[in-house]
């Protein structure tokens, strides 16, 4: 399917802001590694690209505007360090329909892969968008 590619700088400020928003949660200790937190800031940005108008533009412009975030997954493969520049590739990995209580539900699986300039994939994520 169609792919969308963008570049992200893993800046110290972006990581810090994300850490503060996520990490001030009492009861959860500080991260022992910057790995998921660092790239999660990019995962989130990628998710925003998908959900801001509730459709994975420009990949699936035909979908309506009633999508909701059904969940996601995160797969760290190697350490991501401050200052690294990553290329994110977004693709619609799968699409299927399930019966819901109020009618059919369209499920769209959006995959984001993050790679170094050398082409080494450091992480990927999946997001399940649900459309009525």
């Amino acid at each position: 399917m169609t792919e969308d590619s963008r570049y992200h700088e893993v800046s110290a400020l972006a990581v810090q802001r994300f850490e503060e928003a996520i990490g001030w949660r009492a009861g959860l200790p500080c991260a022992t590694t910057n790995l998921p937190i660092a790239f999660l800031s990019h995962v989130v940005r990628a998710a925003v690209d998908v959900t801001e108008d509730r459709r994975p533009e420009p990949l699936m412009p035909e979908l309506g505007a009633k999508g909701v975030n059904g969940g996601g997954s995160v797969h760290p493969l190697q350490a991501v360090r401050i200052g690294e520049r990553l290329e994110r590739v977004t693709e619609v990995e799968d699409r299927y329909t399930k019966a819901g209580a109020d009618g059919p539900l369209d499920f769209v699986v959006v995959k984001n892969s993050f790679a170094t300039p050398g082409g080494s994939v450091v992480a990927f994520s999946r997001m399940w968008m649900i459309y009525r």
Partner: protein
Amino acid sequence: MGTEVWQEAGSALDAGGGKGSWSLALPPVTMTQTAYYCAAAGVRDPIHYDRLFARELGFRDAVANGSLRLGWLCYAGEALAGPDRRLLSVRCQHRGPLYVGDDIRLEVVVEPSPKLDARQRKASLTVSSTAGVCDVGEAIFETGGAA
């Protein structure tokens, strides 16, 4: 708070053979937190930081972001991994909305998973509020030394 939970559950992951469960009460999500998160992540959907807007759409209150909730489970996964295990993946399925002000409980269950490789372990993660289960997820680890 909760440090012993991560240590005990982490030890259970290393042991691999038995089943154990832990429960952790977490403070409610605050309006400041969702607003701060939206600013950090560049989220502009007011359903997360405008209570009146959310209520006009039929929600009980402002809704905690799905990606924020995934982030918390990633954080829990990191806490469970500690220095001795490698976090391979975190998955989160949203079962229902989590509202600002709701009390939250995180359940961690460690049990054998025959589908995984010999060095891999799984922890099930469930987030509940007073209204019921909000998120169901799991974290997969590799034991025997962190990467």
